[in-house]
């Protein structure tokens, strides 16, 4: 595709449930980033992939959060036992090589009720 695609665009889930958020980066981009953005705040870094491996996962808030990128393209952010505090917009971005500019998707708005 032409840009970064995130699905679903909106997700409402009950507290305690498991969710998966998907990101399709721009074809050929080796770097992929996940961020979380709350209303009125800047993007909060979660995890950064170079190829298939997580170059930096220091932003994952706890062990309920996990992300994979098994073939170096599509990535899935997984959240177990969701809590109301996990409600936010989850942003994905990709970059050609992790040095040049990142392109963002529209985000997935997660609401935990």
């Amino acid at each position: 595709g032409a840009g970064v695609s995130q699905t679903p665009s909106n997700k409402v889930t009950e507290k305690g449930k498991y969710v998966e958020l998907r990101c399709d980066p721009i074809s050929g981009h080796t770097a992929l980033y996940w961020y979380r953005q709350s209303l009125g705040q800047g993007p909060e870094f979660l995890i950064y992939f170079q190829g298939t491996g997580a170059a930096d996962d220091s932003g994952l808030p706890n062990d309920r959060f996990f992300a994979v990128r098994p073939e170096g393209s599509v990535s899935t952010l997984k959240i177990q036992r969701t809590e109301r505090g996990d409600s936010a917009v989850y942003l994905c971005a990709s970059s050609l090589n992790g040095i040049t500019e990142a392109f963002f998707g529209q985000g997935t708005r997660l609401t935990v009720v």
Partner: protein
Amino acid sequence: AQSVSQHNHHVILSEAASLELGCNYSYGGTVNLFWYVQYPGQHLQLLLKYFSGDPLVKGIKGFEAEFIKSKLSFNLRIPSVQWSDTAEYFCAVISGGGADGLTFGKGTHLIIQP
């Protein structure tokens, strides 16, 4: 770890005013610098970038940003704001040759009154 500070969190101006948004980063090595903009209801878009060369980078509508290495700064200047410039503006930095990822500031919410 790299950190980015934006000094103005909320700015309200009238059209035609000029504006400078401050951005400072903490890591003094080689950096790539960015300004992103997020218009209401839209995704983050790249506004300006600096990798090397002329430290004054220019974009559309007269937007410009200046990299001052000695101050670890990359301030954004808008010479004459328009109502359509109402948005969130984020400064971001890549350092460590990309190993440190892309770090954002908390953003500035700019509101332009017509």
